[in-house]
């Protein structure tokens, strides 16, 4: 994997139209993230962190500006291509887990493989390995409702890494968890980074951010600070 920009943003803005007024969630973001970086994204509530992460994860498109992923301008990629990107190149971890409540841990973890037309047997095999990896061996058949918050987030991480994506995006993955559990989750993400993946984590917690080698602070939709710690 060659070093070079994995993500590149130029003048990215995002506007939400709510009734009569429009909210400027992002106002001109210029950012470059290289392959293999571990980035923490910080900033006050409402500053636009989630909005930025959604754009990075191709879950929404910028209102203005350019965003290139692995050298390809995202706005030029057709809808099916974006779906493929989301499924194969990007692993997204949500603050609220977003597990499907009626599917078991195993079925939740294997979901991205379903849309890559991977056979059932291989799906099971890889999902089991992914759950093992996040320390949930033996919990395959549990429903999300039967798991603790930390365990749910591990399932979500297993789901995010099952396709071995190059980019892992996590939006306050420890926000709903206690400190110890949060630490374990961060250790998992750090481990993924150590394997060469690019990781971007949104967090409010300075101690969490310390694990990253680059800290971005965003205020009012603009990047206010960009510090490398290593």
């Amino acid at each position, binding site marked *: 994997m060659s070093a070079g920009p994995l993500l590149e943003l130029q003048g990215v803005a995002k506007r939400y139209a709510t009734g009569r007024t429009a909210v400027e969630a992002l106002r001109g973001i210029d950012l470059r993230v290289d392959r293999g970086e571990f980035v923490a994204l910080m900033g006050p509530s409402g500053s636009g962190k989630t909005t930025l992460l959604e754009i990075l994860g191709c879950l929404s498109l910028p209102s203005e500006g350019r965003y290139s992923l692995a050298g390809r301008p995202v706005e030029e990629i057709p809808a099916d291509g974006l*779906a493929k990107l*989301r499924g194969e190149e990007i692993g997204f971890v949500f603050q609220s887990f977003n597990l499907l409540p009626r599917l078991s841990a195993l079925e939740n973890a294997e979901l991205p493989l379903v*849309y890559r037309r991977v056979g059932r047997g291989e799906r099971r095999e890889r999902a089991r390995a992914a759950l093992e990896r996040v320390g949930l061996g033996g919990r395959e058949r549990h429903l999300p409702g039967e798991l603790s918050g930390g365990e749910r987030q591990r399932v979500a991480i297993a789901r995010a890494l099952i396709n071995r994506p190059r980019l892992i995006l996590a939006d306050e993955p420890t926000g709903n968890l206690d400190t110890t559990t949060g630490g374990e989750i961060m250790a998992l993400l750090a481990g993924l980074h150590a394997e060469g993946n690019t990781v971007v984590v949104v967090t409010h917690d300075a101690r969490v951010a310390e694990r990253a080698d680059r800290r971005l602070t965003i205020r009012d939709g603009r990047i206010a600070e960009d510090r490398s710690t290593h």
Partner: protein
Amino acid sequence: MGLLDVLRQALRTLAAHRSRSILTLFGVVWGTASVIFLMSWGEGVALMIDRGLMKTGKDMGQVWPGRVSEEFTPAADRRWLWFTDADIDFLRRRARLPELLGAEWWEWLTAARGPRSINADVRGVDPEVLAIRGVPVAAGRSITEADLAHRRRVALLGEKARQRLLAPGEGVGTRIRLGGQPFEVVGLLAHVGTQLSRDRAEIDEMIWIPITTAQTHFPAWWTDEPVVNRVLYRMRDRSLRVETETEVRALLAERLRVGATDEEAIGIFSSVEMLEEIQVDRIVGVLFIIAVTTLLVGGIGVATMMLDAIHQRRREIGLRLAVGARRRDILLQILLESLGITALGGVLGIGFGVAACAGLARLHVEDLIPLPVLRPGIVATAVVVLVFVGTTAGLLPASRATRVAPAEVLRNE
């Protein structure tokens, strides 16, 4: 997504909206059962009318003599007409379109057996008439050419005539009197039932004797010739009804020296014509429309339930999109779920419809109450309509599902 996953999800959607599912499924079940039942019933009505009309004789035409119409002669000079054996012989030699031709003599006579006496509809017939009428002989024998040649005094009794005239246990071999003359019962006719014929004459009430016997023993008072009251024929081809009538009328008109198109002089009636007039297809068509509408209403139930389910599953759909589902994967999933729900109701509905038809068909009822007649084509039609309804019902929910914006629905609640 495997087909099993889709079916499982369809069941989950149903389970998640329990009371609504029951109503929705009921709508589809009811609609499907209606399609099966009403269409089968329409088939039954058609068959009943056809059979009822054909009971007097399959594809039969009846010809009777009348009066010369005013169009062809001065009013004062309108003569009454009658057929004789010679006319029938002429017709037999010349007519091409009838497959069979028979002569019938007709009179109301007193029939007596011992002290019992009834007023009976007596027909003098030849074997051709019996063949055209197609009434099976239940006991004894039919009227033969030999009976005609020897002018035998033998009689066939219709079922009701037998019941009214003979004592229980009496049958073939019984001696009766017709118009004062002794006759021997040589055959009993099978039960025919109500006919839809125009003259309302019931075969079951008739007594049949050889036409030559009738002509000899009960001669006409106005002529010495052997009179024939009616000509019966079976057309070669149902679709040639008009042509056959035209030919028969023209030939008889030539013999009787009347206008070749004088419908008053030579009256012809075919039950096929009634069948054409009743327009059975329309009855069946109306029933089909009613049934399909019922099923469409069931489809609307499926659509609204699916719409509601889509709204509740926004987050799930958003997540599927986030992990790599294409819009068309979602579209297909929702369409298949809609089809799955429809199929579930459809299978139940087909079951109920078929059971209802089978149950009713087993009942023994009067001739003129139509029973459903189930044909494989009807079930196939129901399946086609179900697939259409299921797909249509899924279209709106599916297109709404593909419009879910993942970023919006996956936010923290």
